[in-house]
């Protein structure tokens, strides 16, 4: 990678003789880092650049008035982007994703935080077994979880009242999809937050305990503000996860008429590239989604930092 060589002058510090000798004699770190750098370049950076390149091209039929020649890739400028931004189905898929996210993301954050704080309450019982149980769905692949819940939703087999509740109706389907996603990730996020809670020094709340503060007060007033960085990270994971919504609706699609092949933005990209064979438009849509994801990630980070910054002051 060309970028790596430009940084050489900066690393020529370090007065320590032994260190200098080590750097001169050992090629080991470069050898160790090489596979990662090569793979990163080939499978992340190259596809990203390739996608950006494709997003500015489109096919043009050339050769004669009848267009019998081979189609040729020509510069399209922003046409693909404008086409995506002008497509109402793209916005509809974004809208559906937002609805699922508005249901699923707060549910994930609240449930995993409440479970983590409950686990840490001194006199709570059954802590070990319930923690394991809540973590269990993480071991279930998203697709398999969707099939599993599909049976639970399906009127013919549903043990949870599928005969009376329309889990695949035009409103219900959003809750059904969000529920599968929440079910899959809540345990993992709980463990992340629980680890943060366990990392707090007991001295922080011993004084409050002596002063007669209840467990609820300790959890909400002392523990919660201190674990906000971990909660922010869970929020970040959840938001990014929502943008990548694909597995659950794709798997539930054969069961639910309300799920179209462009239900979520990523499904839209897939349909564009693989069903309509418009790889150029698909690349443009992908790149738009990447921009949105990075933008949202930065936003969640900034907001999270501001909240936890204010709380700790």
């Amino acid at each position, binding site marked *: 990678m060309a970028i*790596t*060589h430009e940084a050489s002058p900066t690393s020529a510090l370090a007065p320590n003789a032994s260190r200098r000798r080590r750097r001169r004699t050992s090629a080991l770190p470069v050898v160790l880092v090489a596979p990662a750098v090569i793979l990163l370049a080939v*499978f*992340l950076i190259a596809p990203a650049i390739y996608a950006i390149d494709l997003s500015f091209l489109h096919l043009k039929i050339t050769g004669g008035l009848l267009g019998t020649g081979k189609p040729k890739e020509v510069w399209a400028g922003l046409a693909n982007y404008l086409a995506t931004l002008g497509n109402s189905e793209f916005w509809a898929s974004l809208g559906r994703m937002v609805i699922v996210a508005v249901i699923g993301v707060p549910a994930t954050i609240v449930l995993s935080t409440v479970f983590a704080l409950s686990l840490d309450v001194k006199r709570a019982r059954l802590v070990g077994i319930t923690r394991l149980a809540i973590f269990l769905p993480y071991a279930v692949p998203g697709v398999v979880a969707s099939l599993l819940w599909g049976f639970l939703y399906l009127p013919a087999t549903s043990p949870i009242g599928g005969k009376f509740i329309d889990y695949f109706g035009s409103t219900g389907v959003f809750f059904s999809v969000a529920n599968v996603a929440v079910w899959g990730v809540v345990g993992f996020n709980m463990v992340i937050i629980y680890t943060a809670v366990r990392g707090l020094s007991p001295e922080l709340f011993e004084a409050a305990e002596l002063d007669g503060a209840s467990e609820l007060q300790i959890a909400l007033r002392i523990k919660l503000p201190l674990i906000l960085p971990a909660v922010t990270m869970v929020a970040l994971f959840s938001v990014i996860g929502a943008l990548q919504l694909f597995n659950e609706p794709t798997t539930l699609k054969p069961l639910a008429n309300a799920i179209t092949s462009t239900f979520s933005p990523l499904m839209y990209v897939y349909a564009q590239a693989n069903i309509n064979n418009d790889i150029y438009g698909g690349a443009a849509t992908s790149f738009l989604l990447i921009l949105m994801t990075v933008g949202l990630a930065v936003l969640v980070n900034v907001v999270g930092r501001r909240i936890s910054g204010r709380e700790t002051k």
Partner: protein
Amino acid sequence: MSAVTTRVRATTAPAGNGPAAPRFRRRPVSLVPTLILIVGALYCVLPVLWILIASTKTNDELFSTPPFVPQFHGGFLSNMQALFGFNHGVFGQWALNSVIYAIGGGVLSTIVAGAAGYALGKYRFVGSKWIFRIIVAAVLLPQVMLVIPQFLLLAKFGMTNSYASVILPQLVSPFAIYLCKIYAEASVPDEIMEAARIDGGSEWRIFWSVGSRLMMPALVTVFLLQFIGIWNNYLLPYVMLNNDQLYPLTEGLNSLMIITGGQSAQYSIVVAGVLLSIVPLAVLFLSLQRYWKIDLISGGVKL
């Protein structure tokens, strides 16, 4: 909350006989958090329990018997036979493929991440800062969005529809490298490396017999994360593969559902497949739980 705990104390203390009473007074159960945990556990376990029970039913029983009552009329065996007999035993092939993808990809990507993390965490060399910056930026890049460009790129070299097309793109995980770098910095002391150098150990030897040992908890965690990630991955094989002999379980089960989607006569086969794809992973997972260092991930927040 205190109201709840005192109420519990008031009701349980008299109930306890002589010697047990003081113990109750000292450690009353916090009712609300315990109830919350029980409800959460039921929410997470009942669907899996339902699939376990459903797998004991023949297809007719699936629709006619109460949902949480297992049936013992040979339904389980006939479901398994139907599943493994389906399409000349393709289910077994899917399971094998999942194992190949997850173990192969998991081991290789852990080695890649561990080596890179150690180099970035313990050495400063030409470009090390830049490489690390690019990796941190790549953590934010949603890899799922790159699947279609990856497919197009591999298609140019005729590499799609192969084991390699599923494993190769998953070999590099910026997040795993990041975790390994942070862990190497914190857990491999310079003093030990220096002492080993004075004893005449080569850099490679130090990495192999000191660094990698000390990094073992991080490596196990990264391996499990990668294993699960690859096992659960659906989009990548979905895009890369069109030969059902190469499908992993996720892909295979979904195709089974699509094939049988119209005809509910086949649901019990899918139920059996779903069960079989959950159980091994859940067992592996729960038994390895103690080797997990998820706090590594929490520690990773402070970017």
